[in-house]
């Protein structure tokens, strides 16, 4: 059907709301209660627009477009209505922006500057006071005074997580958001509530007061917390990551799980090594690589085992596969069996590794043992030295009941007792790298912060080790790694790996 918005003709599908139609034309109608992924409530009234011929203003979020309609989104009448709605919404607002963590990304601040700019007619002393700093759940703090009762949070708990922890109580200026008696907001997606809250009522206990939002830089990336590989935006400043936020991308919901959001913590975990740690003590990262190479160089190829991992990127696993081939050992494993799938109907995957699909591609291109065969090999005593990711080497040795000297790459604070050498490795927050998620979609992690000095991504470390043992694999640059991925893995032959913007899905 056709209609006019601000005098411009547009065509929409029947059932489209005025707000959505306007947005498609690039006209942003202000909104608080409207959220594209939630049901329409129509209670905040800030989206009022004028429909020519209609006696009253209508809410753009809940009024469907009609044939021949002519909508005005910024007439004098509409602007006056928005100003009045702002005044109502702010009547009991405490105006504590200086101590509010939402400041800088607050709907009230933004729309006040855009549409309000009125002088308050309500003295501070007459405002209704409410509970502040309520401990609402593991990651959330609730401030009832700042709330404008848009009910996005209530609808989120009803419609997305279906856990129903929240409700609106009482009426008029006495109404407030409350938790169900005995309940806490501890569902797996609770931090989304801090995101969708348009004001400072729900704030993240993890992020609040750690950084003013206008200091944050934003790098688009992906979450490596499970095989779903959700799009995220890494918010960082001064080389430290402060939070992960959902990033809109076709095919993914607008949410992130709490577990995924917390993955950034491994970066600054106190136990995460920034230097290599060897039998001889602490070494600079480069010296750690020399140590590992010298151990490797003393052994026959068959005595060396190399262990790929679904928790490492395509680049890392490719370089390890190349290293195994260059050394000439048959003792390598690029295998991981998993049955991925969304387990809760929202985002969380049964497979916790971000790159099992990617690893299986490298496994089929380069061969190598399965995990079971590899475990038998380790138990046989033939292998004298292992190179791999800390967590998996540990588990494999425990499964094979073997104690074999090893060099392990460490991304996290997972302790590595008894290893010959622990090599710090740059994580997906610190280096550009690729994963393939459970559905076969290429996921691009981008370096948001710098790795500690001298700490390299695994593929680069593998390249250095290969050169030091006299079996160069020629993967000095990431471009070379991407070229090698394309030439060695038939599924990726035509993939636009180097193009940062291009999407790709396995057939």
């Amino acid at each position, binding site marked *: 059907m056709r209609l006019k918005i601000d005098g411009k003709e547009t065509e929409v599908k029947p059932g489209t709301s005025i707000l959505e139609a306007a947005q498609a034309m690039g006209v942003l109608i202000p909104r608080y209660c409207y959220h594209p992924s939630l049901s329409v409530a129509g209670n905040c009234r800030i989206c009022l627009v004028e429909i020519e011929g209609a006696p009253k203003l209508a809410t753009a979020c809940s009024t469907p477009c009609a044939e021949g309609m002519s909508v005005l989104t910024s007439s004098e009448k509409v602007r006056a209505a928005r100003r009045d709605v702002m005044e109502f919404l702010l009547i009991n607002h405490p105006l504590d922006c200086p101590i509010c963590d939402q400041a800088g990304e607050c709907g009230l601040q933004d729309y006040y500057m855009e549409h309000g700019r009125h002088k308050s007619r309500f003295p501070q002393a007459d405002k209704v006071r409410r509970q502040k700093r309520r401990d609402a759940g593991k990651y959330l703090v609730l401030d009832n005074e700042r709330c404008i009762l848009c009910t996005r949070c*209530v609808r989120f*708990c*009803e419609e997305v997580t279906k856990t*129903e922890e*929240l*409700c*609106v*109580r*009482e*009426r008029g200026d006495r*109404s407030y958001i*409350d938790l*169900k*008696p*005995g309940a806490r907001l501890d569902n797996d997606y609770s931090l989304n509530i801090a995101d969708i809250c348009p004001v400072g009522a729900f704030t993240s206990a993890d992020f609040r007061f750690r950084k003013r939002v206008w200091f944050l830089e934003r790098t688009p990336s992906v979450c490596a917390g499970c095989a779903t590989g959700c799009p995220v935006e890494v918010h960082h400043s001064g080389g430290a990551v402060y939070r992960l936020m959902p990033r809109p991308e076709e095919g993914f919901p607008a949410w992130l799980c709490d577990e995924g959001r917390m993955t950034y913590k491994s970066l600054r975990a106190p136990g995460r090594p920034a230097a290599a740690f060897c039998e001889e003590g602490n070494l600079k990262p480069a010296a750690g690589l020399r140590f590992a190479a010298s151990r490797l160089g003393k052994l026959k190829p068959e005595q060396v085992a190399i262990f790929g991992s679904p928790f490492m990127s395509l680049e890392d696993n490719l370089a390890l596969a190349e290293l195994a081939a260059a050394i000439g050992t048959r003792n390598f494993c690029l295998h991981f069996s998993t049955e991925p799938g969304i387990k809760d109907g929202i985002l969380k995957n049964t497979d916790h590794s971000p790159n099992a699909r990617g690893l299986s591609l490298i496994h089929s291109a380069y061969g190598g043992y399965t995990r079971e065969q590899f475990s038998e090999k380790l138990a046989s005593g033939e292998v004298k030295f292992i190179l791999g990711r800390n967590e998996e080497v540990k588990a494999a040795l425990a499964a094979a009941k073997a104690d074999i000297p090893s060099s392990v790459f460490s991304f996290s604070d997972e302790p590595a007792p008894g290893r010959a050498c622990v090599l710090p490795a740059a994580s997906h927050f610190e280096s550009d790298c690729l994963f393939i998620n459970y559905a076969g979609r290429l996921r691009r992690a981008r370096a948001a912060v710098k790795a500690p000095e001298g700490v390299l991504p695994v593929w680069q470390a593998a390249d250095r080790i290969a050169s030091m043992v006299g079996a160069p694999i020629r993967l000095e640059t990431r471009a070379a790694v991407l070229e090698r991925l394309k030439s060695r893995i038939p599924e990726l032959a035509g993939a636009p790996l180097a193009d940062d913007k291009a999407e790709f899905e396995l057939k």
Partner: protein
Amino acid sequence: MKKFKFSPEFNTRVAATVARYPRADAALIPLMQEVQRELGHFPEEAAQALANLLGISYARVKGVLTFYTMFRREPGGRYLLQVCRNLSCHMAGSVKLLEYLKGRLGVEEGGTTHDGLFTLVAVECLGSCGTAPVMMVNDDYHENLTVEKLDKLISDLRAAAKAQK
């Protein structure tokens, strides 16, 4: 939270009530009134039970429960005394009646007597201005009240309650 169970009689009435409306959730308020009639108030635990019964969210039931002042969330006395204080009754002397009741029963507005017999509340218009001042005792109207009439009424109610015991 305690598990709440509706009485068998209530459960049999649910289907009939729901059938009167185009959608199950439209039966929410009538059913809440049923619960209140049966129990004298609407307990917190019943909110979740009713939500499950109608297939709607707890938030919805809780919101309705706390929005309407005629739903009582705490158990009250056997007799709910609702004294009208709106314009007509006010001019006809309801202020005096309310003061009298407060004194005689020894409770404030919204309070319940120690013996659990009376809960006293002041309400807005009961829709019977022609017979002001008016008070409701549970579902019954008492009209053209005076302090003397009220005095006798309270004594009668006490006696009736005693006789029932």
